[in-house]
């Protein structure tokens, strides 16, 4: 695809004018000028065309993309040509564009572009073009990159005040002391000091009272598990509910609380791993979408 720029139109008119002058003056030097202008037009076409060949685009999409949040996507321009560098390549992705001033032969260059996906779900970035005005800004050539990039946009996390049960439950079921001895929570007993005990656990108060070095024994915290049953949630405002659940999932996992999900009859056991989180978020993102 080719678009003639304003400068290009002027160049064409100038060439025609000089060609007309050459014919009507019979002056061979003006013929030389007209010939050179035509020749330059041809050569610029060849170079411009060549400049868009052998180029590939790769997108570096972050793993977690939330609706309504700006994220930077890395655009990598790969010049696969053996000899010719790529000059002034503009990559058009959807309604955004990035300029690569120079990419050497057999090398690549990276630039970032901010995207903001408004809605959750699967998105396909398919409309990718490379274009360039090289060499003379007379014509802009476009080439479509026949490559599509799929990405899943998670629902926008939203802190919700209207989910009291879950919230309170979470708070209640959250951190809880266990009888196991650890170093996390409340004091459960005081015993005699044995070598190797950390100094910060020495109970100076008891030591002072008894005259013998005493060590505090603290309870360990056991993490409560949370299971969110999305299927039983109020879905009158589906997007809102999804956002709330997304927020909870993120919050629990950030707090290291295993979280599970029941969604569309599918049961995800509580866990805190990253892959688990992504799985849950994907499920939420694709809820009710074909």
């Amino acid at each position: 695809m080719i678009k003639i720029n304003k400068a290009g139109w002027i160049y064409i008119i100038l060439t025609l004018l000089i060609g007309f002058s050459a014919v009507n003056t019979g002056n061979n030097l003006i013929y030389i000028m007209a010939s050179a202008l035509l020749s330059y037009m041809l050569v610029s076409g060849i170079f411009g065309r060549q400049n868009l060949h052998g180029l590939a685009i790769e997108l570096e999409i972050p793993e977690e993309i939330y609706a309504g949040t700006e994220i930077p996507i890395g655009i990598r321009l790969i010049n696969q040509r053996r000899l010719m560098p790529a000059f002034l390549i503009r990559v058009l992705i959807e309604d955004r564009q990035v300029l690569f001033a120079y990419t050497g032969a057999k090398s690549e260059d990276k630039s970032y572009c901010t995207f903001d996906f408004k809605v959750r779900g699967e998105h396909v970035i398919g409309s990718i073009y490379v274009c360039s005005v090289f060499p003379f800004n007379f014509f802009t050539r476009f080439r479509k990159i026949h490559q599509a990039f799929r990405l899943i946009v998670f629902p926008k996390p939203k802190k919700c005040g209207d989910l009291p049960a879950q919230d309170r439950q979470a708070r209640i079921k959250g951190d809880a002391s266990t009888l196991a001895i650890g170093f996390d929570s409340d004091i459960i007993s005081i015993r005699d000091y044995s070598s190797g005990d950390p100094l910060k656990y020495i109970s100076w108060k008891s030591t002072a009272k008894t005259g013998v070095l005493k060590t505090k024994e603290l309870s360990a915290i056991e993490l409560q598990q949370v299971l969110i049953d999305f299927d039983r949630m109020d879905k009158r405002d589906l997007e809102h509910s999804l956002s709330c659940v997304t927020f909870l999932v993120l919050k629990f996992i950030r707090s290291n609380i295993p979280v599970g999900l029941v969604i569309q009859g599918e049961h995800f056991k509580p866990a805190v791993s990253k892959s688990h989180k992504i799985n849950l978020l994907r499920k939420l993102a694709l809820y009710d979408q074909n």
Partner: protein
Amino acid sequence: MIKISRILQILTYLVVVVSYASVFHYLEHYHSLSFLLLLILSLYLSFHRIIRIPRWVLNAISIAILVISALAISTEYLVEPVLGALIVLVAIKLLEEKTFRDYAQIFAMCIFLLIGSSLLSLSIAFLGYFSLIALFSTTALIFLAYFAQQSEIAIRRSILYKVLLQSLLICSIALPGSLIFFIILPRTSYPIFSFLNKGGYAMSGFTDTIRLGEISEIQEDNNVIFRAQMPKIAEDELYWRGIVLDAFDGSSWKNSGKRSRFSMTPLRGREIVQVVYLEPYGNRFLFALDKPWSIALRNVYISDDLSCSLPDSIHERIRYEVKSYASNLVPDQAVDRRQYLQMPSDFSPRIGKLVEDLTKGKSDAEIVRAILQYIDRGSYRYSMEDLPQSADPLEDFLFQHKAGNCEFFASSLAVMLRMAGIPARLVGGYRGGYYNNTGGYYMVLQHNAHVWVEAYLPHREGWIRLDPTLYARMAPATERDRSFFLQFKLLLDTFNYYWYTFIINYDFSRQLALLKKIKAAIQKPDIKIDLAKERIRRHLYYLPAVLLLGILGYVAVQTIMKKPDDRLLNKFQRKLRRRGYVRKPCEGLEEFAARIHEQDLRIKAQEVVARFESIYFKDQNFTREDLRSLNRRIDEL
């Protein structure tokens, strides 16, 4: 990092300066001066931004310049004022804060300046200006494309070189490519605006009147008057006939204009065909090797005295083909004796007395011999300075001064012959020329201008050429003909010759001839193929050498194109293959080295691998030192 806008600025100045140089000769002083002042001001302001001149001020100045230049325009003086205005406008444009549009306008105006220069001169210097402007503009336009995308963009020096290389590449393809368009672009035999062309009209000198005693600038002029493509011939045959002068008034010779249509008996002698490229010189006579028989040119008139002319003065370079016969004699059976014996009444009794003494009782042939002998033995000297300038210059020359140029020698002989009753006339033209072996043509300069005599001898039934100047003692000035500078001029003229022959004189008729040739070649391809076969057979012996060179070239390019680490790895594997170890596909280097049985070899190979990987896997570039040491280690394997 280098700012694109700075590079663009430098290139724009270069384009402007070259454009100015191309029209410099034709500009009025005030235009040149304004341009230079504005250029210096714009250069100063681009480095020290102390003030910014408002656009309306610049526009007002531009309009004023356009008005002043428009007032100077006339039909005779059209191109120069336009060029003057244009160059000043370019300089004003340089003063402005420049956007993409301003730069584009400057380049367009520079193209118009170059076109303007081509209307005023067809010299080969155009090619120089054109190439320089093409080179600078190409580079500037590439940077302008960058500038248009992001005006504040800056690039690394290494990238700058790459862009420069690209522009060179574009130029090296586009400029020769324009030759194809030059050949095929449509042409017409009747251009409408040909009056705009004034190329090379400046030369003058050769006139149709010879005034004795007047110092003619022509003999000091080293410009080329014409070139004649022909085989080399003997020096004494090189007389280029131009005009015949038959009317003498005592101090000057003219062409009486009495002409009859060419009706002589055919010429005899060796036929010599020349293609003459005559420069515009402001007169209507054509020059051709003595004695011209036919000229292939429209509207040409060959008179009975064998002078050839066009109806109008020659104001543009022309090309014509002449057929001449190298002969000393112009056969003529019906001479108008009154015309060729005409003398002013009471002309120099002293010369009359001399002629009478010399010729008493002698036949025509003896008279001619006696007068020539008199000039030969009379200690006459060839000189272009201090010529006799009295009321009777011929008497002065013959009896007192005894020094003069060819006009004096020829006039004396013709006058003395006429006084002795032998019809005589002067022939003006050129003598000699410098043969260019490379181009196969004679270059004849203005200072080769010459005058000789033709005398009618009834017993020979024709006019014979007599050149009394040959009997003169030549001044040392003629030595310059053999100088180094002349050789150099000849060499340079070869380019000029080809320039005029193939570029300037390429016209509709030649385009048509070329098309016909191509058509003929297509219609009768068998002949060409046969010829081609013969040629191929002749060159068959070179084929293996060419193939070998091609293969070597390919290998060399492949080797150069490979990355240094690939080359190292290949060498390493090759070396070990010779020792019986072949690296399996997908086998790691360390794994491969560990497989070697010989301990010594294994340790060395592992050292190479360790060194290689320490650079390769850290994404470092192999320095020259690294490559050298690794190569040495691999050699030791």
